[in-house]
């Protein structure tokens, strides 16, 4: 479809999805902000009322399964309400990917509750809301330090009793700085394969960086297809 104007081409793509002629929205050679502005358009955008959040799935040789990480690219410093929305977006996606009750680790620098570290307080609240069935279809535990979250031996050494520790399906980041560094260190140092999408709109959005590898873009398309509503 020929459309020489950047903004018009984005609008065209968004309109196609909202008219159900497309199942997934993907960003090409356009800035993220331009795309998101159209996604959030009140008349013909893809808003659902949910928060948009970034969801990344990693495959690393040193972990026994794939692991999802959120939010490493979109929400800067989510508050409690936003973290609840981010977890709900991600859990719904994991449910669609076949995880019945995904295990969610709320990441902190320590596994203890510390009044001076807000992330640990948020973790305690998210855990309790999960216990009370106010956040459904998952098991949440946190705070967990990264090692406790992904290594059963670490968790056992620390004497942590947790259904999540060592077997995490989803890591919830305290903020974008931690998330982004983790994401990039997994890719660069651990040679992880990654697929990522934006959740919270009517359809998954493939919003890979222009510098991402072709493999990452391909895997992200696969992920968007698997997470799609149809």
């Amino acid at each position, binding site marked *: 479809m020929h459309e020489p104007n950047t903004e018009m081409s984005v609008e065209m793509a968004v309109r196609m999805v909202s008219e159900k002629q497309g199942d997934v929205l993907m960003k090409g050679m356009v800035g993220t902000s331009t795309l998101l502005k159209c996604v959030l358009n009140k008349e013909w955008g893809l808003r659902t009322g949910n928060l948009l959040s970034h969801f990344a799935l990693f495959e690393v040789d040193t972990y026994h399964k794939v692991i999802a990480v959120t939010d490493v690219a979109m929400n800067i410093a989510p508050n409690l309400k936003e973290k609840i929305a981010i977890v709900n977006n991600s859990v719904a996606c994991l449910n669609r990917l076949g995880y019945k009750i995904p295990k969610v680790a709320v990441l902190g620098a320590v596994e203890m509750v510390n009044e001076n570290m807000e992330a640990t*307080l948020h973790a305690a*609240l998210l855990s*309790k809301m999960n216990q009370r069935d106010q956040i459904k279809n998952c098991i949440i535990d946190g705070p967990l330090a990264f090692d406790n979250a992904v290594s059963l031996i670490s968790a056992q050494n620390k004497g942590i009793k*947790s259904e999540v520790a060592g077997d995490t399906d989803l890591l919830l980041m305290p903020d974008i700085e931690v998330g982004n560094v983790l994401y990039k260190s997994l890719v660069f140092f651990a040679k992880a394969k990654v697929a990522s999408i934006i959740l919270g709109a009517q359809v998954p959005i493939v919003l890979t960086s222009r510098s991402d590898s072709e493999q990452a873009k391909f895997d992200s398309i696969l992920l968007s297809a698997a997470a799609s509503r149809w």
Partner: protein
Amino acid sequence: MITSLEQMVENVMALKIKRRIAVAWAQDSNTIGALHKAVTGGFAEALMIGKRDEIINLCHNAGIDDKFFTIIPSENEIKACREAVMMARNGEADIVMKGLVGSDIFLRAVMDKENGLMLPDAVLSYVGAIQIPAYHKLLFITDPAVIPFPDLDQKIAMVKYAVEMTSRFGIKKPKIALIGASEKMSRHFSNNVDYAIMCKMADRDQIKNCTLDGPIDLFLACDKKSVAIKGVETSINGDADVLLFPSLEASNPFYKGLMLFASGELAGLIRGTPKPVVLMSRSESEKSKYFCIALSCLMA
């Protein structure tokens, strides 16, 4: 495990230890009657600080031999309170008890920075054991008397005091219910934030030797049937040993309601002091005062 206040008294008697109780402004008939029972019960010595003649008169009116008591004359309620606290500080008394003086005056002497009876940085709070026919065991509550709106650190201290007291009753891992209006987390109730944090701290062993859950309401805390009907998973499971209340406005009417309408009896104490402090309403019955004295002897 001690399951009634009468049994608590028997346990105190069986200890065969006499505790010395300094009573501030002691000329009060209920107080004299309760202390007489404790002295004849063999677990207390009473050091009565107050108006000598009035104390002797009240003893005679009640048919009690004043020789049971050591009377320390004092003509001023503030000085009487200071004297009682001082006796505990110098090791002349094991317990301090409030007589016919207002709580504010009494507590001022207890909390005095230089001459009081406070541990440094300690949280002063109150824990009580309530006996009611409608519940299958003693129900401990905190704090019905001292802290208006406990913050997180104060709530954690309250849990610690409750654990210390229940362990003296032989309860190994008390079930502590953090009481709210509902079991759901709601941003309208700021206490829920503290409660969730405390639950996680208990998970991580930062709060020890107890089972904690909250927010939960009184039904889920004390009634198994409600737990089944509501289908809420809670480690308290209708079998709470301790109720921790979010505020004095919630806890105080709760305890008074039980006293007035549910045939309740209370034994309670101030915690946060190196020696037990017995503080109760002047209108409390002789029986409740006796139970409080026995409890203070158990905790001394």
